[in-house]
């Protein structure tokens, strides 16, 4: 089931609110204008949601960075810097995992198509792109990109069992 919503003169389709299972923690979905000004808000909200999900000290800051990077990718690459669009950030505490989805209706972007980060080459070739995806992958247990129904969905998942980062 889906609901149609007007945003900036365009119709965007978003998932209708789901009924929460008994005992499940509340989810949160946020529609954010595609302006970099709002990145700080996303970062703070992500940190709070991660803390509420029970992550230990330090982890919420890193999760906030990963989501900041995903949102930055949307603004800069999917929307090419256009400030009159919007995207959605969805948080879900799934018990064993914490999941964040960043959903946009912009151009199809495949961050995985970017060359892998090689720090030595970054110095010699003055490359600066691709760091955000690299960070996301280092911080999260799973980062996936999907294109479906003209929407890009970046799904970030972090386990709560304390597996080490920086794999």
């Amino acid at each position, binding site marked *: 089931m889906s609901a149609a919503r007007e945003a900036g003169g365009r119709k965007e389709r978003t998932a209708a609110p789901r009924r929460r299972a008994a005992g499940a923690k509340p989810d949160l979905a946020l529609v954010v204008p595609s302006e*970099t000004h709002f990145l700080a808000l996303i970062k703070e909200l992500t940190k709070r949601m991660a803390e509420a999900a029970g992550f230990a000290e330090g982890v919420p*800051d890193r999760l906030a*960075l990963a989501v900041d*990077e995903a949102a*930055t990718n949307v603004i*800069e690459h999917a929307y090419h810097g256009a400030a009159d669009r919007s995207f959605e950030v969805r948080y879900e505490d799934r018990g064993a995992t914490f999941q964040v989805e960043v959903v946009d209706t912009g151009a199809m972007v495949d961050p995985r198509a970017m060359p892998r*980060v090689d720090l030595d080459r970054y110095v*010699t070739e003055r490359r*600066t792109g691709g*760091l955000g995806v690299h960070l996301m992958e280092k911080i999260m247990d799973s980062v996936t990109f999907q294109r479906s129904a003209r929407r890009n969905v970046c799904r970030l998942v972090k386990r709560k069992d304390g597996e080490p980062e920086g794999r």
Partner: protein
Amino acid sequence: MSELSVETREVGDVTLLYPRGFINAHTVRRFEQEIRKALELNRFKLVINCEGLTYIASAGLGAMMGSIEEIRGNGGDLRLAALNETVRNIFEILGFHHLYRIFPSEMEAIRSFRDGEPS
């Protein structure tokens, strides 16, 4: 509170930058401008005092990467001092602590240039 301010100070041939606030895709231009200003004045020995830096995203790290070759090619270096735990952790996640010299204090970073320690 301002999102990012960047004050600068000169100590001999070393330029100190004091970012206060956070560096992300929204604020990175301000940070880049201050690095560029120093380079345009042919000042290639830079210390970024991160004491007031609460957070840095890849945009800020990219700004450093974008100028490091020019800096080192002119016999200088970009060194960092007084990183808080959050910022240090971000550097370590990316392996940037292997690319940049990091000092506990501003004075130690300045002294490292005077002692002629290699980059």
